[in-house]
């Protein structure tokens, strides 16, 4: 059985999404959560480009992937900024410690 290009991309997509999903559930460190999110987004990128290629519209897939890359980078930057500030004020990066905060 030989896998087509699209099937190979789907294997990568599903694997990256699954690994990122596990990382999101298993990690309590804010930085690790951002790493897991990044892994999931890599899978989404692969899926977008593969879908564009199979439909004969690679450029459309590329333009969408470009938006995803920008959004992903901004999410990472904002997450890291939050992490740095939270670590400075609370002394921890544990997300459970954040959920105990009361206003």
């Amino acid at each position: 059985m030989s896998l087509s290009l699209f099937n190979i991309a789907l294997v990568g997509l599903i694997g990256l999404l699954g690994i990122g999903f596990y990382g999101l559930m298993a990690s309590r460190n804010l930085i690790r959560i951002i790493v897991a999110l990044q892994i999931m987004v890599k899978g989404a990128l692969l899926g977008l480009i593969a879908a564009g290629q199979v439909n004969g519209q690679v450029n459309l897939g590329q333009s969408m992937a470009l938006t995803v890359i920008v959004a992903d980078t901004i999410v990472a930057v904002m997450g890291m900024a939050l992490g740095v500030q939270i670590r400075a004020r609370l002394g921890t990066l544990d997300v459970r410690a954040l959920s105990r905060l009361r206003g």
Partner: protein
Amino acid sequence: MLLFSLVVVTLICAVQAIRAKQLITSSLWLALVSALCSVLLFMYGAHLVAVIELSVGAGLVTVLFVFAINMVGDDPIETKPVPPRWLGMGLALLFIFLLGWYVLPGSIVSSASAVVEQPMSEVLWQQRGIDLVVQVVLIFSGVLGLLGLLAEVKAPLEGSVASEVLSRREDEMKAMESQYLSGQETSR
């Protein structure tokens, strides 16, 4: 075969990024995932996105990660994750299975060669113009986030906020008590 082995290596690197004990190691594995992903994207014909992913995903984001980890330190969190590891692993495997079951049978499609592909500039600037506006807004908010990252950071507190508040309250109580005692002595 080359493509499939690249995908497998990417998945192994992603697992290592999640499993790594140190944050800095984790971010380096993530950079490797980004680099391999950009190679995959290049092989799928998305040359522009591959270059951007390599420079932004493997370059900029990694530098930011290393910078942030240097600022926050690499202290391990001793307590266990909220769902136990076996439950998390089971749910992730179930997610992979269900997604594969849903997606893979429908993926046997013939390549749609009848669609006329438009040039990248036309797609990006004319058809997806609204995306570019969104990107500008996102980049602006990213700059604000970076300012937050670079903002002056106070020294970390010794304990949690609650213990800090409690110790301050105890100090205040002791001060009030000593004030009361000294007042009584003067009245005698």
